């Protein structure tokens, strides 16, 4: 894969290479954050100095179906020893799926200096770079966060419903079987309770992982991404785009790709996604 700068991205500064991370391991202005689906990976070995942010334990409200609030985010930031000036670099398993999700949640609180390590855990491991088991601790910080902003990059069901038929472009990033309604859960994942299968009317189906190179988890080049999202699916940067999946995690990956790599200014993640839509009474469904 070509250097990040040579891939034609709209905002190449949001990606850093494994090399870059290796050169900045001791940089106090940078915090490396691992976010995985598999809870065994971080404790079994992580990039030296990296902290863990767990999507379930750290980013979700323990009771309501929602994300952590301002106080929760400030507490999390203090635990991992960051200030609003710290550059946070996310990486993780599964083509950075969960890293992008954590990145998205951090953007709900407007944390500006945020990046993704291209290729994630897979590339770091394949390159034989060091992994350690020692869990670092950093002095707690004071982080004053703004209230969570749910208007810019997040969208709720009722607003999605109102937008239908207004020219909004919906991107369903689930598997083709979920999109068609043949399944209501991911292939090989357990059934998680959705009453109806199908997709939101008008949605295009672009499985999220098409944006990544499977052999090393890096993102595809801008030209390859445009071939998928623009030539094949007919999106354009001026579109209002809503991405969704099953609970809003895979779609945060697509949100990241469209917003930062292709430079679409108006992309939102519908995190209620199919587990909300497919259980809602009376909403339109297409199969």
């Amino acid at each position: 894969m070509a250097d990040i700068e040579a891939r034609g991205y709209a905002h190449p500064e949001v990606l850093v290479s494994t090399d870059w991370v290796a050169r900045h391991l001791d940089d106090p202005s940078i915090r490396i954050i691992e976010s995985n689906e598999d809870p065994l990976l971080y404790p079994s070995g992580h990039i030296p100095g990296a902290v863990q942010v767990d999507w379930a334990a750290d980013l979700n409200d323990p009771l309501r179906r929602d994300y952590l609030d301002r106080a929760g985010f400030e507490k999390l930031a203090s635990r991992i020893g960051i200030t609003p000036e710290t550059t946070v670099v996310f990486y993780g398993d599964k083509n950075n799926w969960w890293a992008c999700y954590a990145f998205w949640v951090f953007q709900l609180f407007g944390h500006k200096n945020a990046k993704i390590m291209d290729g994630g855990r897979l590339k770091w491991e394949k390159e034989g770079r060091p992994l350690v088991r020692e869990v670092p601790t950093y002095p707690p910080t004071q982080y004053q966060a703004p209230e969570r902003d749910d208007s810019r990059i997040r969208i709720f069901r009722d607003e999605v419903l109102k937008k239908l038929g207004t020219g909004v472009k919906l991107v369903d990033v689930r598997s083709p079987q979920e999109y068609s309604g043949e399944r209501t859960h991911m292939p090989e994942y357990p059934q998680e309770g959705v009453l109806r299968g199908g997709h939101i009317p008008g949605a295009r189906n672009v499985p999220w992982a098409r944006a990544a190179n499977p052999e090393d988890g890096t993102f595809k080049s801008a030209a390859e991404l445009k071939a998928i999202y623009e030539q094949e699916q007919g999106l354009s940067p001026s579109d209002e785009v809503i991405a969704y999946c099953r609970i809003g995690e895979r779609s945060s990956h697509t949100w990241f790709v469209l917003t930062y790599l292709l430079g679409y200014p108006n992309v939102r993640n519908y995190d209620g996604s199919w587990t909300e839509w497919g259980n809602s009474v009376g909403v339109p469904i297409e199969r």
Partner: protein
Amino acid sequence: MAQPPKAFQQVIDDFAFADRQERIEMLIEYADRFEEVPERIATRPFPEEHHVQKCESDAYVWAEDLPDGTLKFHFAVENPQGLSAKAWAVILDETLSGQPLEEVAAVPCDSVFTVFGKEVSMGKGMGLMGIADMVTAFARQRLAARKSPA
């Protein structure tokens, strides 16, 4: 009706009372003891009939006949990030290899959910059950062969 081997039940009980952190530490200790199938049993490319279906970690299972009529189980996990599969393979090997076949056949595959807890709710449950399924199937096959010698 046979019960699963005592050693297996003991491990399941240990996990049933572990909190999230203890569970993770225990699983990593198990995964650290993982040893791949020896070359005298199988070499790459591994045959498809030993491949566990639905396992995202690309796991394989073999059963070696021991002189006393019991089985020694061997495993391969092709996904280097397949730590859960490796931990589960070690648990199955350490508690089921060399045990009476009736007891191995009585192992409930959904023990996966006691060992891995909520952590398995996304993704791995099916594959891990598939590994246990293949182990118990080998025991059942040998038992059936005993009853109706060819």
